[in-house]
């Protein structure tokens, strides 16, 4: 552990400020709470919001898991895990079940989370209406008055043009029947996991300086039409390594002759299954 910094890098006053924002966010599920986002030793877009949230809630006894696109071994995940190992001296893990705090970008782990866990999302754009209404003053008014007809206009347009809602990630949700919320760029496949999740869900946007939260056991609905209900889309394949047919898959190009390999994006899920003896069609070729 590096002793040149305060515990978990941020100074105590900053952590208190972030915690106050978190408390407010938990009290108003889905509402974006402004906070004084700090300069962090990594670029905007790499998880400055998530890292500040994690730094504010982490303790010496916590077990931290960091994933990027579901994987524990990508650059972003490795860097952030090492950052907290050095500045807070916490025990890192790759196992979903062992972690008390999971910081994530772009995925929710396949293994259902528990009440004693907290999941921290890295959010690039906290405002779900940002592409539709350029004025932040106006979007705040729309949130205050719960005027979300515009979001449905976007869904209407998608169905008109493509025959279905063509939002594959960051699919907008209504939290607790009140606030429209951007669930961060997780695939729409993960949206049903937000609903009634036993774990506390925290969302941090560093550049946009916003924190929001979904408390445990909160109603979270994906927007849809009565005659075009929400569907969680997933590639119609099974994992090439572990044979899973229920998880979200990444498509990997393996050669220049059109070869494709579909694998679980959640590496922990895939490894756990393989350790239990499951194998997929391409497991031998991949080794």
């Amino acid at each position, binding site marked *: 552990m590096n002793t040149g910094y305060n515990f978990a890098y941020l100074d105590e006053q900053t952590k208190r400020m972030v915690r106050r924002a978190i408390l407010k966010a938990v009290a108003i599920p889905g509402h974006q709470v402004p906070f004084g986002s700090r300069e962090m030793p990594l670029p905007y877009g790499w998880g400055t919001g998530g890292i500040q949230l994690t730094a504010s809630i982490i303790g010496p006894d916590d077990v931290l898991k960091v994933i990027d696109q579901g994987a524990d071994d990508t650059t972003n995940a490795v860097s952030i895990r090492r950052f907290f190992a050095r500045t807070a001296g916490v025990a890192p893990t790759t196992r979903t079940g062992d972690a008390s705090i999971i910081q994530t970008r772009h995925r929710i782990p396949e293994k259902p989370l528990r009440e004693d866990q907290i999941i921290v999302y890295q959010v690039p754009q906290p405002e779900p209406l940002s592409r539709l209404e350029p004025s932040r003053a106006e979007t705040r008014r729309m949130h205050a008055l719960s005027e979300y007809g515009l979001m449905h206009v976007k869904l*209407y347009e998608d169905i*008109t043009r493509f025959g279905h809602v063509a939002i594959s990630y960051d699919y907008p949700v209504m939290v607790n029947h009140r606030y429209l919320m951007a669930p961060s760029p997780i695939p729409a496949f993960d949206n049903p996991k937000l609903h009634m999740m036993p774990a506390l869900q925290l969302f941090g946007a560093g550049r946009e300086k916003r924190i929001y939260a979904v408390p445990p056991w909160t109603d979270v609905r994906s927007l849809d039409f009565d005659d075009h209900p929400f569907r969680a889309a997933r590639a119609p394949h099974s994992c090439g390594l572990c044979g899973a047919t229920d998880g979200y898959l990444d498509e990997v190009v393996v050669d220049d002759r059109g070869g494709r390999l579909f694998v679980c994006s959640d590496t922990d899920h895939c490894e756990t299954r393989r350790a239990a003896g499951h194998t997929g069609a391409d497991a031998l070729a991949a080794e």
Partner: protein
Amino acid sequence: MSEDTLLSASRLTLRFGAVPALVEVDAELWPGEVLAVVGESGSGKTTLLNVLSGRLRPQSGVVWYRDPEGRLHDVHAMPLPALRALHRSDWGFVHQNPRENLRLGVTAGGNVGERLMAQGSRHYGRIREEAIGWLRQVEIDADRVDDLPRTFSGGMLQRLQIARTLVTHPRLVFMDEPTGGLDVSVQARLLDLIRSLVSRLGIAAVLVTHDLAVARLLAHRIMVMQRGRVVEAGLTDQVLDDPRHEYTQLLVSSVLQA
């Protein structure tokens, strides 16, 4: 204010610096009635429209609105959510430039359906059906429902705006120069359309225009404004055929006879 007035304004005053935009203006509107506000540019017509519809706050005076249940509301004392809800459902606003009101990147059907969705409609098929029905009513081909407004002509844009406004069956529509910027034959067709819609649906309207012909064709009553004051008001034919005030006389005599 009498028993059945829909909208009633008394002693509205508003100054922009030294410029008097409205001076002690009174106005009343009954259900199903079209009231035209005429006058030259800068006479306060549009300001009056904005004040009546709650978009602009007067320095003094009050505007009362009677809702379908017969309750009276002071438009400028209403909480913002209630006023915005009123604008989304019971009221409509037709702008001179349809591009201000329409979403140009959204299809015609989406534009017409937006107010329905804002009111909570969540059935795609029914919203689309309703949108197509309204396009027909404003004489736009049903197969244009999936086209973007930027492929529409000026007259079609204005008709699309009217469809978008009327889709929630408002009781009161504010119109700001609805035929401005259109050529004469398109104007005539649009006027015909507005007149038939307003009479068939029993909509009350406040119509701002500088064109006396438009006022004569559409309006039951007329108010003539000059420098923020109402100089003459009465039944349209009466005022236009027998103008009393010298400014009205000037207006009427300056209309070109074709």
